[in-house]
């Protein structure tokens, strides 16, 4: 299972993030790590996000019109995540919003942040091919294309490096688990919430440690 970190601002890219998340999760052998699933941790968000970037196999960086919230260090969370990807030599696929990407008037940032965002957009474009998009639907297709192209261009296919071989055991095994609700005491809505939490636990907490992953699917009643 390859882990893809989804990095971007939130307010201006809600639908785009969701589209990218679904596109990545729909790819067999890939799991998307995103801030919406982080929950509560006794750790600074900046440190936590950069650690997640360092643990990932690939970083998808979606850069929109907003610079976004700043970390205590000064730069935005998104810029810090991008910098962490570069520092950790993580492959980073960059998607920029096109000039016609809509932005609600109440989201427009102050001049200083807009300058930072212009500089950040240039920084993400330096030395790499970037993709522009105008709608969330476009992002789904472009993200899948980019990941497949990245996959095909990886050196020696999926052969791990000597260092990886020495440091690792089996990379991962993945099962499919069907969840059947035959209880009259638990509603289907409760099952959905529980299965979502269990899925997060398996992907986020269990799989990286044990090298065993699973995709949980709620089976229809009578299945």
């Amino acid at each position, binding site marked *: 299972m390859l882990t893809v970190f989804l990095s971007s601002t939130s307010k201006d890219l809600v639908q785009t993030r969701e589209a990218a998340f679904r596109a990545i999760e729909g790819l067999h052998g890939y799991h998307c790590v995103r801030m919406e699933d982080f929950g509560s941790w006794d750790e600074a968000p900046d440190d936590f996000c950069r650690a997640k970037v360092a643990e990932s196999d690939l970083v998808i960086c979606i850069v929109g019109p907003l610079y976004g919230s700043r970390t205590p260090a000064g730069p935005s969370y998104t810029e810090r995540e991008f910098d962490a990807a570069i520092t950790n030599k993580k492959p980073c696929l960059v998607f920029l919003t096109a000039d016609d990407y809509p932005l609600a008037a109440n989201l427009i940032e102050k001049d200083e942040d807009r300058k930072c965002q212009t500089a950040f957009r240039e920084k993400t474009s330096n030395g790499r091919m970037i993709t522009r998009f105008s709608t969330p639907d476009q992002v789904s297709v472009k993200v899948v294309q980019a990941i497949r192209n990245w996959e095909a261009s990886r050196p020696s296919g999926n052969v791990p490096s000597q260092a990886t071989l020495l440091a690792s055991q089996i990379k991962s095994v993945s099962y499919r688990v069907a969840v059947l609700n035959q209880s009259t005491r638990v509603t289907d809505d409760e099952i959905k919430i529980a299965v979502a939490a269990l899925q997060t636990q398996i992907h986020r907490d269990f799989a990286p440690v*044990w090298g065993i992953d699973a995709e949980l699917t709620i089976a229809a009643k009578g299945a």
Partner: protein
Amino acid sequence: MLIQDESEYPGAIAYHSLTPEGLPLVKVSVANAQQSNVPWTTAASHDLMEMLANPRANLAVYDSEDGVKGRLYVREICDPVASIYYRIDGTVVSNFVYPAWFESFRARASAQFDHEGKLNAPFEVAPGSYVTSCQVTASSGWQQNFAPAGTADPPAKTTKAKKKAKR
């Protein structure tokens, strides 16, 4: 994974085993969980992870004491921390041990032994939790060892284990 009201085993909250065709299976009894004041999601989490780590419920880890004596530990990754929970988006889920917990060469506090960081050594059992093991040179067979709540390892109380522990 089957979520059902009652269990065919009286009092069993959840267990994992195999179907007649050999497919790994988890069964969770919501009624028994509610009667025991245990969130059914914790039981589901517990046995789901144990099923993934030991799909056919037939794996054990050998810990040699001196090359002659030794103990086999059933590879059930939630039992040693069965009394410890944490939350994901409000849903209560089970703690679980890390691979280092089964590695006797590791020194105390030298690694992370469980997800919640409550254990400090290989084969340590959290208060109120248990482990199933077998002394290979003894004739006592598999035993379930409990660590009483509020005390530290080693566990004191021992009972005969069933074929597969049922929570």
